[in-house]
């Protein structure tokens, strides 16, 4: 029996900044279009995690009146700092020596989750239908191979995929154009890139994992509007990463750590590096006596234009970080994701009205400021493959002297999952025990994310080869999943590989970093996963 189907002009997968922007812009251009957004989180914002220092350029274009519409963008950046950390020392880098792209004086410290909630309200006012709790689990194709739409996840299956009493079959959603805006490593985006060879001739995509905590601190420790970044300790010089510390409103500090997933040492644990980072003398004092109120983690795109796939295919567009529009040296992707959404809407209007091919997306995107800034930023991340010092020197020359206009483009040579070296060739790392005040274990951290998946449902982290973790990955790499997963989903118990999928916070790191690409992240039942507040 055919599944029930609904027809829309445009179906959008993912209610993040890119998807919501597309919907709003489409309605502004033609209020008669029927538009639906599917969102796997239990509400809009529940799966959004970002720094976030926000550049308003794209929002100014989309909703110029945002200041008067009570947008949750209030805290202007008032002061900036950049520190190089040694084990016990810190060196403050003068901000006038920072590349222009790293200056934030016009930007705002925001919660991207709250911005998405606000954008969703604007979209709904315009008549967009948003369905939280409905993951798109499958791409549907027309007979000619073009994208026809998506299907939502079946609900109410038990562990063995038998139907429970509450079983509800997924629905087909058909659209003239389907927009994929799932964010970094979207599980449908990944399939589309493969099926349509969208990454042909591109460098392998580069990723990072970002971990974030929100702290409530005393008035003395708080300086609303202060933006601070660090590089160096506790990472070694061959590992790309650093921290962000943003003083937001209500005596809250958004504290985070980003580590490039091209790290080589399988003994490295991004979660524990982040915890250890907080014990540095110049960081500790900012949080001591304060209270950690939120935790979360999410993979992000670092590949830039060298790795940016083609963003169009028959019947569909791939936008935001589902494609990979984040600007790495800026450590910002919300504004470029939104711009890619604006261009998507303009493209779709021309496509539906004038039958113009969706491939005009490419030209439009290349002419935009978003592409120009990604182009200027392109050489920063690959230069850090030469190590921290060379990376900084090169970036200084590239970004300050030449402003990204050097006449060559450095390449990303390897995919992140190829970067790990065998465990016996790399040093073990002895992480300090958490104290439960400043530093924490994974169990108490996942508790703060509000994560839950209905217990009796199919495991949404699939193994291509169930034997591989014990037979190969454990022996060669000491099973790094135990460490790269920020919430302890993967464990080895009595020589068995255990997947605690109900703890999964949908960060996608396992899908990226597993050395044999043996772990496949698929959508769980709707509404599962974290319930982030103002992340």
């Amino acid at each position, binding site marked *: 029996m055919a599944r*029930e189907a609904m027809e829309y002009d445009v179906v959008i997968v993912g209610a993040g900044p890119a998807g919501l922007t597309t919907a709003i812009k489409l309605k502004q251009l033609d209020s008669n279009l029927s538009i639906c957004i599917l969102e796997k989180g239990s509400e809009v914002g529940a799966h959004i995690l970002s720094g976030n220092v926000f550049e308003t350029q794209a929002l100014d274009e989309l909703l110029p009146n945002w200041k008067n519409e009570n947008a949750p963008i209030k805290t202007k950046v008032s002061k900036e700092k950049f520190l190089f950390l040694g084990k016990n020392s810190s060196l403050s880098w003068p901000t006038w020596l920072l590349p222009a792209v790293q200056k934030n004086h016009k930007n705002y410290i925001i919660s991207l989750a709250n911005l998405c909630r606000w954008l969703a309200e604007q979209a709904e006012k315009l008549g967009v239908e948003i369905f939280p709790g409905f993951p798109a689990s499958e791409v549907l194709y027309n007979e000619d191979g073009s994208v026809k739409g998506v299907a939502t996840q079946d609900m109410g299956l038990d562990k063995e995929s038998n139907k429970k009493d509450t079983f*509800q079959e997924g*629905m087909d959603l058909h659209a003239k154009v389907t927009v994929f805006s799932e964010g970094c490593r979207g599980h449908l985006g990944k399939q589309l890139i493969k099926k349509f060879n969208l990454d042909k001739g591109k460098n392998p995509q580069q990723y990072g994992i970002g971990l974030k905590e929100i702290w409530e601190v005393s008035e003395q420790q708080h300086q609303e509007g202060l933006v601070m970044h660090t590089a160096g300790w506790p990472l070694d010089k061959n590992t790309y990463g650093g921290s962000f510390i943003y003083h937001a409103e209500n005596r809250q500090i958004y504290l985070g750590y980003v580590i490039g997933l091209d790290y080589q040492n399988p003994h490295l644990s991004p979660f524990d590096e982040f915890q250890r980072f907080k014990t540095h003398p110049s960081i500790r004092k900012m949080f001591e006596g304060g209270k950690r109120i939120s935790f979360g983690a999410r993979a992000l795109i670092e590949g830039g234009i060298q790795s940016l796939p083609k963003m169009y295919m028959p019947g569909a567009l791939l936008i935001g970080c589902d494609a990979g529009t984040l600007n790495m040296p800026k450590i910002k992707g919300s504004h470029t994701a939104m711009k890619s959404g604006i261009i998507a809407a303009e493209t779709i209007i021309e496509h539906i009205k004038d039958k113009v091919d969706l491939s005009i997306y490419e030209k439009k995107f290349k002419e935009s400021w978003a592409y120009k800034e990604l182009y200027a930023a392109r050489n920063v991340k690959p230069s850090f493959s030469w190590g921290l010092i060379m990376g900084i020197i090169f970036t200084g020359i590239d970004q300050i002297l030449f402003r990204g206009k050097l006449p060559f483009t450095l390449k990303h040579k390897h995919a992140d999952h190829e970067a790990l070296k065998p465990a016996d060739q790399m040093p073990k790392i002895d992480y300090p025990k958490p104290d439960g005040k400043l530093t924490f274990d994974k169990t108490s951290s996942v508790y703060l994310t*509000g994560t839950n998946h209905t217990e009796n449902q199919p495991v949404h982290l699939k193994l291509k080869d169930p034997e591989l973790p014990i037979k190969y990955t454990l022996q060669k790499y000491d099973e790094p999943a135990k460490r790269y997963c920020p919430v302890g989903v993967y464990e080895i118990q009595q020589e068995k590989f255990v997947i605690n999928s109900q703890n999964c916070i949908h960060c996608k790191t396992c899908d990226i970093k597993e050395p044999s690409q043996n772990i496949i992240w698929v959508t769980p039942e709707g509404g599962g996963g974290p319930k982030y507040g103002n992340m």
Partner: protein
Amino acid sequence: MKILVAVKRVIDYNVQIRVKEDGSGVHTDNVKMSTNPPDDNAVEESVKLKESGKVKEVIAISIGEDKAQETIRKALAIGADKGIHVKADSYIEPLGIAKILKSIVEKEKPDMVFLGKQAIDDDCNQTGQMLAAMLNWPQATFTSKVNLKEKSVEIVREIDEGLETIEVNLPSVVSCDLRLNEPRFASLPNIMKAKKKPMEQINAKDLGLDLTNRIQQIKVDEPPKRKAGIKVANVAELVSKLKNEAKVL
């Protein structure tokens, strides 16, 4: 037959509760809100009864700020026919809620009022009982099975000693236990249909009721942190510690 089912918007059960520093309550900003879980069971059972043909109309009611309408819409997406939102911007105690429900019952004249056995935010477990008393209706609480007859309803209740089966005359107030059923998922088409179902809006102030709160909240505090456990060497040490340190023997 007509059912009035009451639903409350509460902090989602997965969210870790944070107590405000000044002890005046808990943080609700930036927190995911959902329907009180046993209320979901009440809605599910009402809709099941409607599907069985025994009930003609299901009305979902919620009392609270504007966002309580989301909770009503969810009930409408499951299958309730109409919503009533009684707007109230500040906290109302169970007695006040029962008074409001009573006035709505007098207007709508349902044969049964269904509600969750208690709300997971204040854990009072009082509204259903107070409402039944004020209406002078029979009540059945902690219901885990419902058998609706023509003029009465047979109820299985979960009590300390096991299961108790009672029969109450209609009209009556029935409060639901989590084991009553497994609430269904709302489907996409039903969520869309729910947006078009009628929703009546009433201001609590306009009902002419005395809704003054009578309980003074002195302080909200976090529960004490559990101390780390210890390992004992043998039974004798365990017994001695239970006797002398824990003083439970």
